[in-house]
């Protein structure tokens, strides 16, 4: 049996392509016609963080392949402590208390929380005897997930908290009943239908549907009762969604959702970002306006264009070829990571790599989706591309941890399912 560490060339190559693209985009979005070079400003910082992260990642390759498994809980604990600390010593940026200032560098623990949680989830799921049918295990799992989520919501960064929803994919892969997924999708559907048509119309529709079901199955009481229960539950949910939307959500959150659902057009207010973002991407055409030539990018029309809206620069300067190419790179990387997860011999590694792939999938879906106007504006970065030290550092380290685990898969003897 071969025991040499072999890094996965395909995943590494895809990662490097995306990271290089990221640096060019940050450079383009910040450069003022060559006022400063690639190595200064944000693109310079981006390179520095990428360098540091890759260095750390390479150091991982010197470690024992069981290192992470042994230190899963301490890593998770340390990051949870940071999340608590940020609530007390953090500084506010854009209304969220998510940053800890260390000298000139601001650390964003919520970015590292995904990484830490992936360790805890992997450790928990690979515990011998863990089962989704055991209530105690479910409670533990919920605690592991909800703790960082809750702390991040307390910071005022709902977007980053939502990312933890991507672990549902991991659980599903590991045996969680698909009912939960179906339920989740149904809830989202009810939410959207209620917001578009109102809870009243929804309720009437459900009652009519119930009537139809009743008309065809009135002899079969086994179907009737669950139907009534489902109808009542969905109507109650719809009413509460309406209530939630009207009374609980904050104005800007409501507007973001309404803009995404095309319920209102507000190109100067809540919809400004998305509108400008669509204009920038849409004006790219087939092959874009050329590197450093994006007029919308240069004109600073899009807020957060180096971070959450970095995809605009890709779309504008690289056109459809580069933007769909970028999506293709991500899709290939994610599929490759899922493949790597599935070939792992240890459940721990499989869950961990699967978590990374699912988190990347979630980020890609939400981030790109919002820039092209089919997802609400949720402020999360595009991995490896958006500017931000914490984001680059955490995702790259996450990536290298996964690469390391995959590379040492041959050392693992057992193969668990």
């Amino acid at each position, binding site marked *: 049996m071969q025991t040499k560490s072999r890094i996965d060339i395909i995943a590494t190559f895809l990662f490097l392509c995306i990271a290089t693209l990221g640096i060019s985009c940050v450079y383009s979005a910040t450069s003022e*016609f060559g006022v400063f070079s690639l190595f200064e400003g944000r693109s310079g910082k981006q390179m520095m963080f990428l360098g540091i992260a890759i260095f750390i990642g390479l150091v991982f390759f010197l470690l024992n392949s069981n290192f992470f498994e042994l230190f899963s809980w301490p890593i998770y604990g340390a990051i949870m402590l940071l999340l608590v600390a940020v609530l007390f010593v953090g500084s506010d940026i854009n209304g969220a208390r998510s940053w800890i200032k260390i000298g000139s560098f601001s650390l964003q623990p919520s970015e590292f929380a995904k990484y830490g949680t992936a360790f805890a989830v992997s450790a928990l799921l690979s515990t011998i005897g863990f089962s989704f049918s055991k209530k105690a295990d479910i409670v533990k799992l919920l605690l592991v997930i909800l703790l960082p989520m809750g702390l991040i919501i307390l910071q005022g960064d709902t977007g980053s908290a939502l990312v933890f929803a991507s672990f549902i994919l991991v659980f599903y892969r590991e045996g969680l009943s698909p009912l939960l997924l179906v339920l989740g999708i149904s809830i989202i559907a009810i939410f959207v239908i209620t917001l578009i048509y109102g809870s009243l119309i929804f309720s009437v529709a459900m009652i009519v549907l119930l009537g139809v079901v009743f008309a065809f199955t009135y002899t079969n009481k086994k179907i009737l009762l669950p139907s009534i229960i489902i109808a009542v539950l969905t109507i109650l949910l719809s009413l509460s969604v309406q209530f939630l939307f009207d009374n609980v959500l904050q104005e800007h959150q409501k507007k973001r959702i309404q803009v995404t659902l095309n319920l209102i057009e507000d190109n100067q207010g809540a919809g400004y970002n998305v509108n400008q973002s*669509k*204009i920038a991407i*849409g004006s790219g*055409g087939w092959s874009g306006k050329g590197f450093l030539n994006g*007029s919308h990018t240069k*004109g600073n029309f899009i807020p957060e264009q180096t971070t959450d809206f970095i995809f605009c620069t890709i779309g504008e300067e690289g056109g459809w070829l580069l933007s769909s190419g970028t*999506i293709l790179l991500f*899709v290939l990387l994610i599929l490759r990571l899922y493949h790597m997860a599935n070939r792992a011999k240890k459940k721990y590694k499989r869950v961990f790599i699967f978590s990374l792939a699912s988190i990347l999938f979630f980020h890609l879906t939400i981030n790109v989706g919002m820039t092209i106007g089919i997802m609400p504006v949720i402020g999360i970065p595009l991995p490896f591309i958006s500017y931000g030290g914490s984001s680059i550092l955490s995702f790259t380290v996450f990536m290298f941890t996964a690469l390391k685990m995959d590379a040492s898969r041959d050392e693992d003897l057992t193969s668990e*399912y």
Partner: protein
Amino acid sequence: MNFRFRSYYIYVAVVFIGLIYILRLLEIQVLDDKYSLIAEKISLRKQTIYPQRGLILDRNKKLMVYNEPVYDLMLSVPIKLQDIDTSEFCRLIEIERTEFDKRLEKAKKTAYHGKAIFTKNVSNIIFARLQERLYEYKGFFFEIRQDRNYKYNSSSHVLGYLGEITRNDLESQQESYYEQGDFMGKNGIEKFYEEYLRGEKGESYFYVDKFGVNKGIYKEGKLDVDPKDGNNLFLSLDIDLQQYGEGLLDNKMGSVVALDPKTGEILALISSPFFDPANFNIQNRSKHYADALMDPTKPMFNRAVSAPYPPGSTFKPIMALIGLQDGAIYPETHFGCPGYYRLGRRIIKCHGHTFNTSLERSIASSCNTYYCNTFKAMMQSDKYANTEAAYNSWRNYLESFGLGQELGVDVSGEFKGWLKDASFYDRMHGKGSWNYSRIISLSFGQGELGMTPIQMANVAAIIANRGHYYTPHVVHRIEGVNEIPEKYRVKHRTMISPTTFDPVIRGMLLVNESGTAAGVSIKGINIAGKTGTVQNPHGKNHAAYMAFAPAENPRIAIAVIVEEAGYGATWAAPIANLMIEHYLKPDSVEGSSRSYLETRLREANLIPEKFIRKSVTSLNAD
């Protein structure tokens, strides 16, 4: 239990999302060009580079009109004024805060092509002050355009002025050259030769950021177009002669038109009073426009081409020519004049002169009787079936002189004058029930006859040329263009044959030798002229005079009208004769009589009391 298969559902989901996004990108980036258009509208700005408008010079290459920059303070649209110290900005451009808000509102409403005018025609001082601090006020920028300025306070009626394009002009233009806010010739030469003077605008494209700050040239200037400066225009005016005439007409209402009979070029075209052209450029117009409009002496009214005057006795040479040509009289024809012409119980008075009048003497001494007889002979000639036919023939002769119609000069406001159809007299007296006696005053230039000064000058030119004329024009040469417009190079012939002119010209020479203008004749120049004193039912008589000189080789033809001045010989003839001398002998030593004449004319104030403007307070009291 092995859940590996569930991974495949997730693979499918990943590919599905990727595909959806790639298709969505295809839709907004490739299939829908709406976003490209919006992006250009938002971030691409076109700056118009205005060319230098062509200069205007006189026939001797003396500069008359040149350009002067004006600065418009513009706002970039969409208007995003952030972090602007508004009170400091208001202080810099010297307006109140409320005015600032008002202008901002207006700018929002009038925005076009990504920009809006905030303040038009900012003064040089404010421009200099604001320019160096403009970076503090993102979104504001200056647009520089060319206004006119003038070397001479003269010739305003010929030059005309520029103005901002109106909505009407904008919508009716055929070549879509102009944009809102552009200047164009509104009047005079500026309007007639707009096409040559304006040049071609240039364009420069650049990107702006969300504050409207220039972020660099679009596509390395590939789309940029350099402006082409306008063609310089040389006028046929002689600015010395023009100003000399304007001086003589000072404090008078009237007009002088001087032509070069050989070419039809206008040497001087004066309508008095006139306005200072510098007061009517873009920057100053608003301050002076209402004032000029309200002035009862009508300085904006171009009498030289717009005002019809009965020609009075200056018409007699024309009547003589028609009579000769038509066979009503011969060069040897004499009529007896007892000092009046009897028409039934009516009497038409004449002036004291010898009883037996020849054609030449009738012109020299301006005999009414001679022309009443001539006119009667023509109207009752056997050649014609009736008076109407005779009248129509007479009218045809006049039309061949360019009367009763617009000549087509390149001076704004031309009027065709008055020359009635026979039907006019039919309506007045009943068809067939009028004869020569009803219209006999036409024979000596009174009645339903009106000639503009330029028509009168053209008649002088026709006589000087012995029967032909070129349409009068002020364009002498357009730089970069070989020829002036064709219509100014076409020879128009009258219905009078060249030999017919000799006796009439001899008579006109006598006017200055021993006739009505003998007292103001110029030594050494043979001037053929004819005075006129035009009856004016509203006040004193208008003084009129037409002439050309030198008679042997005419180089100048001239007509003068001085309103409500009195005798033509007293006021109009000396002005014309002095101008003829000034033009033909600019270096002649001024004799004492001449300088006396000049002083008398310059100092005379002949504007009637009723036209002296009331003070503003009394106007308000009204």
